[in-house]
């Protein structure tokens, strides 16, 4: 009876979702590159994410990721006084040293909009790498540094000519930048861990660029860190700080308490601490999840950290923090009682707080509540929100927005430990493989999959065990991930609606005219071939296009292609969809292949996963070039 009830409930839920999903699917098909959330449903939310202050401190320039705008707020009246249209999905901004220009990255367009601060008009658009995020200008205002998330590098752009001079290799998912107070160095962080050996501890880096030589001069290693966000400095330049996640992806996820899944933390660096020191911000029974924005007061008395999934700002006493760091000789990042020695307040704010900024006198702290379309104003002496600046977004909250809030909050997990967005950073991936408990300890290791355009790729889970998204996101998540009462039926419907709405990101490997390069053409022929190089026919089930067929390059079946591991309970794996496969390393169901090449050079000795052993290295390269265009 119980199982029948469950099936009935799921059927009802599916019935509720189906019309919305159909609408979204229609919208997606009609405009493949657009976000169905924006084309299918009328509300256009602003989603403020980053801010800078005008030189006189009277105006706030707010990047609105959802509405593709820069909104200018007069701080005295608390009103939006002007709006500047930008490119698609703007993400980061900075101001030129002479305050004459504002630079905003457009992450979907791979450009930087240059805004004349006097006229508030876009005067130029500069090309960048793939999916630009953070941007800073050097002290002279001659060079722009742009962190490119998808290409994992930093564009160095000559401001005068608008040309990219060079591109520096950075961490995977390069996203946030800060200029040191003396202007000598640019510090960069990245949101995905570096690709490394299978089932080994993830590592990240702080990339340090010398602005004089425009070269990378240091890569500060962040051990066991995956997901590094903003970076900031004290005014004297002696203390640097990044916000970060320490995932516990290598141990069985059998419970949540005692910091079992994530360590929300900071890395301190610079002369004040020497080397790098990782510092926890969680407590024993409460978690401050997804630390994201960070800023230090000019007098170095306080540090403010937005915790994006916990909807709060953590306030840290910097002198106490430094004293504690100097007193503890051993690493203490796994000590959940440490934060009591330096965290002085937790200030509740709105949904998904991101960017953080201080007023010129440091008496006010501005926090961008991304999913509320407003800015929280905090009295930094009293540590409380004293007002909220409405940026003028829609007043109604539609199912997509509700689902987005559910996706980005940690409220549902036991003790508020984590949310969907901890593993699906900005609704993408985390680049990690996890050991989930229900399959047994050390068994059935699973790679974190992309959420782009999931409709039509059912079933889900590495072995195809979950027939639909309500099953994937519902009771399974409650029982084996959050370990606490989570979504009701309506909330699950909203969440699924949001997840289904996530579009493909633009594919940067396709030529503008939709033609293929010669290498891609050769790769396509290999992908579609039906015979070995010696002319013998390849059995149909062993041809690439047999399993990877249809509009999303999956036949949605579960097959043994020889990639199973001794620790897997079954060799059968769900055939994954391939669009934008270039963005989602590592590969295979368990994340054991660190690159597309390794799928065939390491994990296909018997040609079970397509025929590849008769290919030359160049031919394999061609195949991969083609796969990247899908």
């Amino acid at each position, binding site marked *: 009876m119980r199982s029948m009830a469950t099936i009935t409930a799921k059927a009802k839920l599916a019935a509720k979702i189906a019309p919305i999903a159909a609408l979204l699917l229609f919208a997606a098909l009609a405009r493949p590159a657009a976000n169905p959330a924006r084309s299918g449903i009328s509300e256009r939310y602003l989603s403020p994410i980053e801010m800078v202050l005008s030189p006189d401190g009277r105006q706030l320039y707010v990047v609105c990721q959802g509405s593709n705008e820069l909104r200018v707020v007069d701080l005295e009246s608390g009103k939006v006084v002007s709006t500047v249209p930008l490119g698609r999905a703007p993400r980061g901004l900075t101001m030129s040293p002479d305050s004459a220009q504002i630079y905003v990255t457009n992450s979907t367009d791979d450009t930087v909009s240059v805004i004349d601060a006097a006229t508030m008009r876009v005067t130029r658009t500069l090309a960048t790498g793939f999916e630009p995020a953070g941007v800073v200008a050097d002290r002279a205002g001659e060079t722009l540094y742009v962190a490119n998330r998808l290409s994992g590098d930093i564009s160095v752009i000559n401001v005068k000519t608008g040309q990219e001079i060079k591109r520096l290799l950075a961490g995977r998912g390069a996203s946030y930048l800060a200029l040191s107070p003396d202007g000598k160095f640019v510090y960069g962080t990245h949101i995905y861990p570096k690709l490394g050996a299978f*089932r080994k*501890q*993830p590592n990240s880096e702080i990339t340090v660029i010398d602005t004089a030589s425009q070269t990378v001069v240091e890569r500060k290693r962040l051990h*066991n860190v995956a997901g590094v966000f903003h970076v900031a400095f004290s005014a004297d330049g002696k203390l640097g700080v990044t916000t970060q996640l*320490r*995932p*516990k*992806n*290598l*141990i*069985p996820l*059998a*419970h949540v*308490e*005692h*910091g*079992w899944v994530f*360590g929300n933390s900071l890395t301190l660096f610079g002369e004040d601490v020497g080397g790098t020191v990782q510092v*926890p911000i*969680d*407590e*024993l*029974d*409460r978690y401050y999840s997804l630390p994201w924005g960070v800023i230090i007061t000019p007098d170095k008395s306080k540090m403010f950290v937005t915790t994006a999934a916990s909807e709060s700002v953590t306030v840290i006493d910097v002198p106490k923090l430094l004293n504690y760091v100097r007193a503890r000789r051993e690493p203490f990042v*796994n*000590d*959940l*009682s440490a*934060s*009591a020695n330096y*965290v002085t307040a937790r200030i509740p704010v709105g949904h998904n707080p991101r960017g953080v900024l201080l007023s010129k006198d440091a008496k006010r702290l501005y926090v961008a509540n991304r999913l509320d379309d407003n800015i929280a104003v905090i009295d930094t002496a009293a540590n409380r929100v004293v007002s909220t600046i409405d940026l003028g977004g829609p007043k109604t909250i539609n199912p997509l927005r509700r689902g987005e809030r559910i996706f980005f909050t940690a409220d549902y997990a*036991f*003790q508020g430990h984590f949310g969907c967005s901890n593993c699906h950073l900005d609704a993408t991936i985390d680049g990690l493989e996890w*050991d989930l*408990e*229900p399959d*047994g*300890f*050390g*068994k059935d290791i699973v790679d974190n999959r992309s959420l782009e355009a999931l409709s039509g790729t059912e079933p889900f889970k590495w072995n195809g065990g979950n027939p639909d998204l309500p099953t994937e996101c519902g*009771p399974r998540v*409650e*029982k*084996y991930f959050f*370990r*606490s*009462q*989570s979504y009701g039926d309506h909330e699950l419907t909203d969440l699924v609606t949001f997840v289904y709405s996530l579009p493909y990101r633009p594919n940067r490997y396709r030529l503008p005219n939709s033609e293929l390069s010669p290498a891609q053409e050769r790769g396509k022929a290999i992908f579609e071939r039906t015979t070995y190089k010696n002319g013998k026919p390849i059995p149909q089930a062993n041809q690439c296009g047999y399993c990877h067929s249809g509009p999303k390059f999956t036949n949605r079946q579960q097959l043994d292609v020889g990639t199973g591991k001794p*620790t897997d309970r079954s060799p059968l794996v769900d055939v994954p969809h391939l669009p934008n496969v270039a963005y989602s390393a590592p590969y295979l169901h368990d994340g054991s292949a660190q690159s597309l090449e390794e799928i065939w050079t390491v994990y296909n000795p018997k040609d079970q996963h397509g025929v590849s052993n008769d290919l030359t290295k160049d031919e394999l390269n061609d195949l991969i070039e083609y796969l990247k265009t899908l």
Partner: protein
Amino acid sequence: MRRPAIVGRLLLLAVTALTLFAMAVALAPRQSAASSSTDSSLLYTVAGGYDPLAWIHGSDRFSGGATVVVKDSRGRHSLVADFAASADPAVSFDGENALFAGKQKPQDRWQIWEISLAGGKPRRITSCVDDCIRSFYLPENRIVYAKKVDGRFVVEAATLVDGKATAPVVRLTYGPGNSLPTDVLRDGRILFEATFPFGSSSDPSATPELYTVYSDGSGVESYRCDHGKARHAGKQMSSGDVVFASESGLARFTSALAKEAAIAAPAGEYAGDLAETAAGDWLVSWRPDTRSRFQLMLWTDRVGRTLLSAHQGALRPVVVEPNANVIQPTPIVARTAPKRHPSALHDWSYANLLCLNAYTSKYKFAAGSIHSVRLYARDDAGQAKLLGTAPVETDGSFFLQVPADQPLQFELVDGSGKTLKREAGWFWIRRGEQRVCVGCHAGPETAPENAVPMILQRSTTPADMTGATDQHPSGGH
């Protein structure tokens, strides 16, 4: 010329009136706090004799009888006037019903009853052969209570169907001693009191301690690992802190700290089981010395932002019974239900336990010294019985399959078989539970390091310690 003078007087009058109004407003919060606290509806227990720790030995806390009293706008009256005894009141999340332990006749066993607070006859919830006491509501129409089995109290959870505790009845505690629930935490865990070392009721040195367990009996652990202050009768306050009675008065567990934090309360003895008023003040059962009776006091510990000293005057009497104890204050208010725990127990007769690193411990073990782990159960006579020995890897990891739902005890041994450390108390793992530990007595403040345990690199099959087969520490380092 008179006009300005009149204006001046009017201004003076207005300023004076405003000042008086401001003073009245400034004073109002404290007055309203006190009045709201005393005026709000309340359940409490009046007991002639009250030994809050009698449960340690399986005895009755209310040897001299007890009565649950309702204090509301109509005055004070017994919750169930025709009962021989009643105690342990608990109010439902919607504020409309109450559970209590009751005896209709003096010779009856304690049973759990439920009554509508709007009036009506009480409904008997349990039909226990021996006493059933100390019940609380759980989410989704479940309750938790202590049931006396073979002379000792165990904690059970049951579903309420048509006013009866029905299947599935889940036993939550499997220690050898007595256990008594004291609250249901907002995160869904059940706070209960038992002895430390766990299950050592017969040990004269055993002291009460606070533990938590999920509502399916899994995940049992002590709330904190700084044992030793006779903690009992804990309640979670709106701040999330757990406040409890201890040897030194009142103390609290707060999320940020690994050790209890002292509460500077007025001198005297506290019965625990505090309640919080809507204004944030505390209702406490207090007595000046052990010869006196507990009285119900309101502790208004703040005026604005200023903490009062622990001066006796900070306590104001709410209910005083000259010849009886006034305990277990329970406001009749609706509140948010705790989160439900989605049980993830597997359908197995056994359980698995993975320790990531036995060297992560409050005890100091020399690097490489831990060779293997022994697991003990208890025989029929209550004596420790060795179930087997399993290897410990060089990184301190071990992985065991263990018998479920019974007291277990670990012992770490070196290469020569010498004991390095043996648990003082006992613990259990539920059927189908997959338990993971950071280390051996690592403390709840210790988060795990992110590394694949060596034991799982060697094998994903646990060493069988269920007693079904002999185990040898081969394969260790």
